[in-house]
């Protein structure tokens, strides 16, 4: 029996997010011969975005354009998606485990009476079933799950599933969808973009993270400089956030965000269990700490025992030499 998959393709600043292509790839892995894949994009002025998507392995792309969709609004997005869900009748919906995906997916799952697999890091077909791997306790443990005989909604964690590749010469059909008129109970008054031009923490390939050892908000400056040079993002431990040195939005750990970058540089972070849960799946971990006994060194690939205010600027200088 052929199945239909719907990918909600997220975009930002006029570009497809990497995680949208990862969600698409997840659907590609889950699908079999004869299954059909559709995508949906919401927002305004989406022509070039839909064009970009059309070369990927999709049969059609539903484009929903409306002023009420420029900023994310759960109610407006759900109402706009409703006719697409009705016409596509997806067996499975895939999207990113992002601010939008985390918020939207459970509502869709409830609407479809579907099972949901959140924050999925791997997908493999096995004996006619699709097996999804996801973290528990922020990565202190993992579980493999299957969906019982029902529809499903899947959110994939950024940076874990390879991005889908365009198919040469392929052209997906683009379908414009009208938004139903309705009165919304939720109004977005203002969006303050604090992250404009910055690399999203969960999607960053390199993270330079600070703990209590940075000592102040100003103490993050050398870390920001290094992250900027490497095209990475700045993160923080709970200690640094609780001390008021930075925004909670930067917190990495069991409370906060779980990240899996290529390189994680922990500066002045001792390595509490709750922090390790959020970053120990990074490919390479570098620890910089004055205390040679700090637990972070037990899981670090490379350690430098020293004052981060001395080490980090020197590292920045060395990287600059290499990267030109």
């Amino acid at each position, binding site marked *: 029996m052929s199945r239909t998959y719907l990918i909600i393709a997220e975009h930002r600043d006029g570009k497809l997010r990497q995680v949208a292509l990862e969600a698409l790839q997840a659907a590609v892995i889950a699908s079999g011969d004869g299954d059909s894949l559709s995508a949906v994009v919401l927002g305004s002025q989406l022509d070039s975005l839909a064009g970009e998507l059309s070369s990927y392995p999709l049969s059609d792309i539903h484009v929903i354009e409306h002023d009420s969709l420029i900023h994310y609004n759960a109610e407006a997005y759900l109402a706009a998606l409703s006719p697409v869900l009705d016409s596509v009748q997806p067996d499975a919906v895939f999207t990113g485990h992002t601010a939008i995906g985390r918020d939207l997916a459970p509502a869709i799952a409830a609407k479809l009476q579907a099972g949901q697999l959140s924050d999925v890091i791997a997908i493999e077909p096995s004996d006619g079933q699709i097996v999804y791997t996801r973290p*528990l306790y922020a*990565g*202190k443990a993992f579980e493999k799950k299957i969906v019982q005989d029902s529809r499903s909604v899947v959110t994939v964690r950024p940076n874990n599933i390879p991005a889908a590749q365009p198919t040469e010469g392929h052209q997906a059909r683009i379908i414009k969808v009208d938004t139903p008129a309705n009165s919304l109970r*939720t109004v977005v008054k203002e969006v303050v973009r604090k992250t404009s031009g910055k690399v999203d923490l969960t999607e960053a390939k390199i993270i330079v993270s600070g703990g209590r050892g940075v000592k102040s908000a100003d103490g993050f400056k050398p870390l920001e400089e290094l992250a900027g040079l490497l095209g990475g993002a700045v993160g923080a431990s709970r200690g640094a956030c609780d001390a008021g040195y930075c925004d909670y939005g930067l917190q990495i750990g*069991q409370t906060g965000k779980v990240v899996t970058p290529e390189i994680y540089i922990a500066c002045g972070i001792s390595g509490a269990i709750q922090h390790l849960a959020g970053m120990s799946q990074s490919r390479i971990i570098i620890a910089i700490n004055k205390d040679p006994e700090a637990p972070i060194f037990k899981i670090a690939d490379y350690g430098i025992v020293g004052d981060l205010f001395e080490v980090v600027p020197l590292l920045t200088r060395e990287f600059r030499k*290499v990267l030109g």
Partner: protein
Amino acid sequence: MNVYVILKQTFDTEEKIVIQNGKVAEDGVKFVINPYDEYAVEEAIRLKEQSGGIVTVVSVGPERSAEALRTALAMGADEAVLISDDRIPADEFVVSGVLAAYFTDKSYDLILGGNFSVDNGAGQVAVRLAELLGIPHISSIIKLEPSGGSAAVRRDAEGDLEVLEVSLPALFTAQQGLNEPRYPSLPGIMKAKKKPFQQLSLDDLDVHTGALEPKTSQVELFLPPARQAGQILQGDIPAQAAKLVELLRTQSKAI
């Protein structure tokens, strides 16, 4: 104002995870109110202190969850409800359905919950519940100011700040930064013992059997491979910095 808080009891975040007989072992583990739910409890109590009303805390979970509810009562919540029944599987579809059944005959202005639980981390139950109840939801809030029939809300969206207004009743999930939860005071703990505490089973709720069938199931539970300690670099700091960048290029091929 009538405020409900849905909460879950979870492991303390400093606990290590041990798997025994295919399950996460709970022996000797310190349990807490899920940290995100704790912000929700605190916010509900603050709203009550400002403008009156009743705060009811509700949990679906095993008997041990009673302790988390009692902590919430000691913080200042007025009433607690524990829905505990072995027939309820750990599946978000089912748990949200059970909660929806509980809320059917309740009247509420706000329902608060946590952004996600630090154990399962799926972040589904609260949002599913809002959808099942047909009320709007705003997740990951860092500020909440109800007035009249609506609420002004600030929401954290991956570091960006969104300012919203929503009509009530509505459901909100708490993000870090919403408030600083209080510790229960000794008089609070004493008072909590006399506050209404209701325990319900499925027999008390109108949940049909189909709604108890889990939509997902676990086929394997495992611990990640332990990370080995790598090398501590030696020499003076400038030499170590240069060595590290070289190792990242040659050994790890990361840059």
